[in-house]
């Protein structure tokens, strides 16, 4: 059995689409030869790249590795692939023999950072871009990318894909019934009531076996009501952060989905594949998911489904953040282990990977958008991709990265899933849910064995 922790994988694979328009300022591709590399790479040293052979496969790695070989013909360049990073790489970290660059899906980035097992790769940002002479790597990246992947202000991780998270529906279905997607939660509940009354379609479904899928939109609704401070307080484990009235109100709102029978029957026990399949079959109108949904559905999605992503509804007209606000941004993590044999080589390969040329290739091969400006130029976008691009455009500066506590404190993340399941099974009241979450957050804050980070 392949047992990659799914939520870790999805979080890291925050992928999908976006941002062709943000990329208009990119300069034309200019091939650069090895001479100007400018870094202190010892070209005679062997280099090993560890690739996570999951959602994006390994085909995309061929181009950057070949470019590295071209640059340093005497280097022995090796690709290792796998899906079980914990089992494959943990012993190597302990022995002090890790690969030189890792596509990390599965190792706890926060623990690696806390243990100083990863290298500060901040220097990469000020290096010259691999295929755009005179341009710093920093300036080839989409907004927010340079800042992402930091722990306590130090850049340990380089994201490479770009995406957003929201609610999905089938546009033809909404059009057919004359429904409009609501901007606030009370309108959402009113629409659900109408759907329930006039059709036999369930208004909502979600990936109940992994309740975190629904926690995301719920937290986002609360974020819109309370404003950006809420996220900061939660991420910094501040006392009573989870007791915020906006969170309790959002919990009440989402519990209504279960209480009023607006959920596809059985949703709480469905896996991600099961619930998503029912959604594709038109058994439910809305489903929360990230940008990878289209890739994940693959062939089971009919061509005329008209997959559309929209931001999560806010709470009410009094919201502090606009409806257009979404979580999104860079995802995935390329890391250079601090004890690698050839860290400079790893960093150089990383510089090659985030070149426009290689990222364009990544988009072509994986149909996922990347962190580099203009890398999606010339790639035809699907309905799902177009809608996500529209979401990103509309969000502008209101796009914010996912809640950091989910990356920093794995146990708190796990506990938030537990609490969400209890909420949707109506075993706790929204107030009880908020108290429980506060208790979990306090436990994390008090636990001296957990390294704390600050937003």
């Amino acid at each position: 059995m392949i047992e990659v922790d799914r939520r870790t994988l999805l979080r890291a694979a925050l992928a999908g689409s976006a941002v062709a328009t943000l990329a208009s300022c990119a300069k034309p591709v200019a091939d650069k030869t090895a001479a100007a590399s400018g870094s202190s790479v010892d070209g005679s040293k062997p280099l090993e790249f560890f690739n996570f052979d999951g959602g994006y496969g390994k085909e995309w790695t061929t181009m950057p590795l070949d470019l590295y070989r071209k640059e340093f013909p005497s280097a022995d360049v090796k690709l290792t692939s796998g899906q079980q990073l914990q089992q494959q790489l943990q012993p190597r970290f302990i022995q002090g023999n890790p690969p030189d660059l890792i596509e990390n899906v599965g190792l706890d980035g926060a623990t690696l950072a806390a243990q100083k097992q990863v290298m500060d790769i901040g220097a990469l940002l000020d290096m010259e871009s691999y295929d755009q002479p005179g341009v710093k790597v920093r300036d080839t990246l989409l907004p927010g990318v340079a800042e992402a992947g930091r722990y306590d202000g130090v850049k340990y991780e380089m994201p490479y894909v770009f995406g957003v998270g929201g609610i999905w529906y089938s546009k033809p279905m909404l059009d057919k019934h004359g429904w409009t997607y609501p901007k606030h939660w009370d309108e959402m509940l009113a629409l659900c009531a109408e759907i329930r009354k006039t059709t036999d379609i369930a208004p909502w479904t979600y990936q109940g076996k992994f309740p975190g899928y629904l926690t995301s939109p719920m937290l986002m609704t609360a974020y819109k009501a309370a404003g950006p401070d809420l996220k900061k307080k939660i991420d910094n484990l501040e006392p009573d952060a989870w007791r915020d009235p906006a969170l309790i109100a959002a919990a009440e709102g989402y519990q209504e989905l279960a209480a009023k029978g607006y959920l596809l029957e059985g949703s709480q026990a469905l896996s991600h594949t099961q619930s998503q399949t029912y959604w594709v079959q038109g058994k439910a109108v809305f489903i929360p998911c990230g940008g990878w949904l289209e890739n994940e559905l693959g062939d089971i999605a009919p061509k005329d489904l008209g997959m559309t992503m929209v931001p999560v509804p806010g709470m009410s007209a009094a919201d502090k953040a606009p409806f257009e606000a979404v979580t999104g941004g860079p995802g995935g993590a390329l890391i250079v282990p601090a004890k690698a044999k050839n860290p400079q080589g790893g960093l150089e390969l990383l510089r090659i990977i985030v070149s426009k040329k290689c990222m364009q290739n990544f988009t072509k091969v994986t149909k996922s958008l990347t962190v580099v400006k203009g890398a999606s130029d010339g790639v035809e976008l699907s309905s799902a991709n177009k809608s996500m691009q529209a979401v990103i455009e509309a969000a502008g500066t209101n796009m914010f990265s996912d809640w950091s506590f989910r990356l920093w404190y794995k146990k708190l993340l796990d506990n938030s899933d537990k609490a969400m399941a209890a909420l949707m099974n109506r075993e706790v009241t929204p107030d009880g849910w908020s108290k429980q979450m506060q208790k979990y957050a306090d436990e994390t804050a008090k636990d001296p064995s957990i390294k704390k980070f600050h937003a």
Partner: protein
Amino acid sequence: MHHGKYRFVVSLLAVPLLVYAVFVVSPYVQAFPIAFTNWEGLSAEYHYIGFGNFVTLFHDSVFWVALRHNLFLLVSLPIIIVTLSLFFSTALNYQGGVPGARIYKVVYFFPGVLSIAIVGVLWQFVFEPRNGLLNGFLRAVGLDGLARLWLGDGRTALGSIMAVVVWGGVGFYVVLFTAAMAAIPRELYEAALLDGAGAFQSFWRVTLPLIWNTVQTALAFLVIGALDMFALVKILSVGPGGPDDATQVISLYMYTNAFTYGKFGYASAIGVTLFGINMILTLLTFRLTRRERVEY
């Protein structure tokens, strides 16, 4: 000649024992010192923190929930499985074997052939709340009111997983008990019959005492098994271990601490505790089920 026999036995056992020592015993032993460290499993660095992990464990509410579930399973699973197995194998052996007994034995044993991972995946489909076999059956026979979320509901989740364990476990013990029963001389039953014993009495007075050693072994096995439950809970349950810890067991919590939270020291402390509980219970099982050995 005895000398040669021992050399033969030793040479046969040496390699497996060595492999066992390296790959099973040594990691087991290593877990003990690790349990006293704060090792996070991603570097060679760690510090000894004495009984710190065990103190934390004592105050960890999730651990107690998991322990409670394990203890519940520990009492209920052996009773259910042994009772059912005894019932089935007695039925198969009734008056020297019912017609088609062989086919039944194969049918009972069949789940035991499947890997536990496959069993888990198969039952996922059975429990699926919308189109699953179980709810589908209930609705087909008009018992719509009994359809449940099964794994998604805290009240039924643990029971559902127990049902899978029983389904998978009964067959093996049916075969085990049947073999033991087949070894009982027919004359004993004939004598019992002459003394006026019915089917029920000859089971209690003849069959059970004579296969008690086998039952005892079965109970010990089941007790150890009930302390594990890792694979099925990991595959079947919501979360896993949920909803809201409703199916949390010690082995899964140990795994989660090691591989999700990166707390290898703490996970080892859980492992060591589990080992202790396991030892005590196994000894207790043998002690409580000890009876006079019946010679025949």
